[in-house]
């Protein structure tokens, strides 16, 4: 042979070392261009395509929902809508009391849930020693996360509204929503605490700090971004819940804005429900329903966006 054997002019059907192309079930393939690697590549491409389709469906669902609501509700959004109370059997006017009510409930929920949730997470992650008690507590928290929201509503009604005599009020509603948000906050706080390297704790203890000093001077500040992100996500979930507030805080109509935490309030999710089912002018208020839904979604998405941006900013800092 005059030319040297290169990859290009090697006789077809042979592997890199000139040996026979392998058939299935004999030796491991030696060639770079065998039919087997073509098969594997095809499988890989198929799987990736399926993953891409799943991601697209995911993203599109959100876009579709927002578009649907937006196209039917944007006409209702104007300054009056956002700053005035409803009038004329709620066929006209605005949803200001609902916005205020939802904000009050969310704020109340986070004020109660955040300290309790963070304290629980600190106990579970930093102090508790593995054992039966801790397992039971964790079981309780995980199961709490799975309780249906309407059951929470009933619990809130029976316990806060009736037994503790709070009546239908912001207080009762906030406490019920707080109970619902606890598992989320405990979970994300624990995750944030776990992410703090043990080397920090060791360094602190090695300098003669107590465990508590270590937690509030080093561990908690380092975990704060994760804790706050969890809190924001917790509120955004609480803001959109209907069933827990139906029995405990929200009512069909209030003549004025709330002045104390014992007042009943109107709320965005409940208002949608009311207009769409129990109101006297269901068809006439359809555009208002969509408008309210749009405002609620904007609130929830807005909160989530804040959480995402804040987390990204902190990641960049690190």
């Amino acid at each position, binding site marked *: 042979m005059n030319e040297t054997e290169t990859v290009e002019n090697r006789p077809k059907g042979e592997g890199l070392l000139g040996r026979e192309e392998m058939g299935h079930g004999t030796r491991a393939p030696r060639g770079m261009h065998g039919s087997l690697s073509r098969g594997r590549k095809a499988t890989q491409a198929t799987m990736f395509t399926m993953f891409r389709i799943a991601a697209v469906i995911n993203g599109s669902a959100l876009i579709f929902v927002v578009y649907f609501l937006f196209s039917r509700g944007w006409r209702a959004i104007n300054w009056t809508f956002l700053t005035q109370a409803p009038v004329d059997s709620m066929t006209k006017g605005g949803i200001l009391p609902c916005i205020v009510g939802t904000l009050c409930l969310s704020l109340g929920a986070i004020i109660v849930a955040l300290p309790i949730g963070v304290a629980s997470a600190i106990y579970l992650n930093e102090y508790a020693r593995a054992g039966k008690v801790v397992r039971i507590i964790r079981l309780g928290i995980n199961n709490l996360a799975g309780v249906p929201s309407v059951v929470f509503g009933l619990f809130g009604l029976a316990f806060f509204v009736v037994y503790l005599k709070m009546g239908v009020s912001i207080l009762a509603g906030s406490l019920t929503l707080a109970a619902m948000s606890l598992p989320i906050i405990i979970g994300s706080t624990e995750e944030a605490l776990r992410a703090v390297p043990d*080397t920090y704790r060791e*360094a*602190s*203890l*090695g*300098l*003669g*700090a107590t465990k508590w000093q270590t937690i509030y001077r080093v561990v908690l*500040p380092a975990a704060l971004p994760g804790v706050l992100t969890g809190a924001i996500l917790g509120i955004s979930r609480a803001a959109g819940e209907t069933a827990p507030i139906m029995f405990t805080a929200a009512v069909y109509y209030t003549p004025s804005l709330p002045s104390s935490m014992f007042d009943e309030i109107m709320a965005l999710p409940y208002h949608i429900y009311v207009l769409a089912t129990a109101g006297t002018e269901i068809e006439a208020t359809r555009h208002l329903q969509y408008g309210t839904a749009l405002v609620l979604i904007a609130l929830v998405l807005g909160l989530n966006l804040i959480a995402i941006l804040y987390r990204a900013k902190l990641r960049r800092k690190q």
Partner: protein
Amino acid sequence: MDNKIKMKADNLNFYYGDFHALHEISLDFKKNEVTALIGPSGCGKSTLLRCLNRMNDLIPYSRVEGSVLLEGEDIYDPNVDVVTLRRHVGMVFQKPNPFPKSIFENVAYGMRVNGVRDKSYLVNQVEKSLKQAALWEEVKDRLDESALGLSGGQQQRLCIARALAVEPEVVLMDEPASALDPIATQKIEELIHQLKELYTIIIVTHNMQQAARVSDVTAFFYIGKLIEVDQTETIFTKPKLQQTSDYITGRFG
């Protein structure tokens, strides 16, 4: 107790659960001397070091038998406050672990947790400690910047300054230079020479040449037992036991 001895392990046994990690260790650490603990991986030298400031208390299912004396007092006595002990016996860890705070706050941390609030005292101590750690000149103009922006060698010297700021009597170093490049390592070793004027230093090292360079006394460990301890020069030139000689010359390890 002979008043040249700062710390002393007396028939110390240590267990991780059922695993007997340290067997009857009896070893003196003299004042203002550098004692190096050497031996192959898993021989217990880091375990012993962590017994000296009771950092092993953090490990669940660990158990200590025997005693460790600091100036004649047993640190494992139930009346001893571990938190106070750790102010007297400081530690520098293998991987530099500065807090995600400013350089100043890192060095001041130990003092703050011990209740010091006087701003001028803190400022002076921080400067003094950073000078002792040979880091002052490099950071004096950026004390408010994050400690995480320093190089590895600087971070380790910062950790040393942080440990010195609480004015311990003994400084434990667990392979302080193993994560550092040769130039940073050399700086740390020079530092150790200067520090022994003021402190008693016990250093664990994997690097035998480093032990030979920095220490006055060397103790050789193997599978949880103290095999031989002597003046560094003797250990490295005329060790008494064959096992020591084999390790020094690299026959195993």
